[in-house]
């Protein structure tokens, strides 16, 4: 016998299920009298510094059908690359910016949409700059453990080419699954980021 390590095990994950909206975005399904607003749904306040952008897309299953019951959370740095919230020791992020947002995909079309700002560059663990990116966390019925991925910006080619995380991915042909394409047709820079859970062009998901 040896001494015990006084550690606990992480609670096992379970699927968010099809009714995740009840607990996370109740107004989205018509439960309007419990919370004032759906957490993470408010627009970025006007005083937040940075370029306004839209991120939109769908999540596809292995048969090519768009999920209509998924929930997405995003987490990102401010325009200067500083993170709001806990754990940022390099400085103070834009106090008006929360860095976090949450949206369900549309119940009919499966389309999600975030209106946010373009993040600045934050350093990798060895100090090299990471290209601007947004963390995505995806849960739904049929997903047993929430999936982490990253959106990188298609108009940041030089920064993406030098990004230490993208640089570690051995199968270079998979890197484009993380890169959102930009369109300016609507007047606001709009990045389309489709996520494929399975099949051809399966999105890269990370063990973080």
């Amino acid at each position, binding site marked *: 016998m040896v001494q015990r390590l006084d*550690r*606990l*095990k*992480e*609670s*096992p*994950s*379970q*699927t968010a299920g*099809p*009714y*995740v*909206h*009840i*607990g*996370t975005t109740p107004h989205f399904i018509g*439960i309007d*009298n*419990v*919370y*004032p607003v759906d*957490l993470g749904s408010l627009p970025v306040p006007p005083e937040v510094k940075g370029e306004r952008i839209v991120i939109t897309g769908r999540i596809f*299953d*292995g*048969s090519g*059908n768009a*999920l209509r019951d998924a929930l997405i959370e995003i*987490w*990102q740095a401010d325009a200067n690359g500083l993170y*709001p*919230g*806990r*754990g940022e*020791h390099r400085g103070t992020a834009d106090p008006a910016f*929360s860095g*976090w947002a949450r949206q369900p995909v549309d*119940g009919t079309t499966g389309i999600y949409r975030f209106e946010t700002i373009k993040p600045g560059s*934050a350093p*990798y*663990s*060895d*100090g090299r700059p*990471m290209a601007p*990116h947004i*963390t995505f966390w995806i849960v739904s019925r*049929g*997903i*047993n*453990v929430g*999936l*982490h991925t*990253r959106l990188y910006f298609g108009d940041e080619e030089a920064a993406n080419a030098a990004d230490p995380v993208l640089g570690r991915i051995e199968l270079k042909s998979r890197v484009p699954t993380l890169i959102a394409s930009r369109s300016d047709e609507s007047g606001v820079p709009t990045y389309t980021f489709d996520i494929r*859970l*399975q099949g051809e062009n*399966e999105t*890269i*998901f*990370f*063990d*973080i």
Partner: protein
Amino acid sequence: MRNDNTTYQDGAFFQRDRAWHPPALTPDYKTSVLRSPKNALISLGNTISEMTGPVFGHAMIGPLDNDLIRNYATTGDPIGPRTIVYGRVLDENARPVQGALVEFWQANAGGRYRHKKETYLAAIDPNFGGCGRTITDDEGRYWFRTIKPGAYPWPNGVNDWRPAHIHFSVFGHAFAQRLITQMYFEGDPMIWQCPIVMGIPSREAVETLIAALDREASLPMDTLAYKFDIVLRGRRSTMFENRREGN
């Protein structure tokens, strides 16, 4: 200046034990078949993007947010066994996680959810919404009051039923700790017949999701209590962190 406690909590998170969690593909839970990535996850580890996370203040929590018996009701109390759920949010180092936002949602006593895509024939309870939230205190504690949810059938096998359960969403101190899970109730034989539960590889891991009936915390002639602790990923002490170039 950082105090010792902050320094202790600053390190990278322990690797998630994927053999403890359900795998992405659990064929007996049919929806997972087309929604499970086939490629291996790419090991990223923690960068600042994962070691930071949003903060939710106690000010956003309304007085009835942790009272599902009252936060939706208009004409009386919802039907069902009056229930207290309480516990702590801890990390794998058994340290309390203070300031953690905990959100919960559930079916009513008949096993019916208040959701526009829900079609189970059990009755909607006009006085039950089914959602609540709270933020842990300085010792990582949380509690809420609700009615015990019922079991319900779901389209998977021709006759599959979910055991009574409450869904939980938890934010720790960093996005790397983000977790959604479900709580089950002590003594329910249906736990061990559920394809979603049985996707968890070990009985030992399933048991950590089963809340214990706690008569001592129950209110006599009023409400039964269940205790449910939630464990988030732990993190290394910066005492042991690798020295990096330039540091």
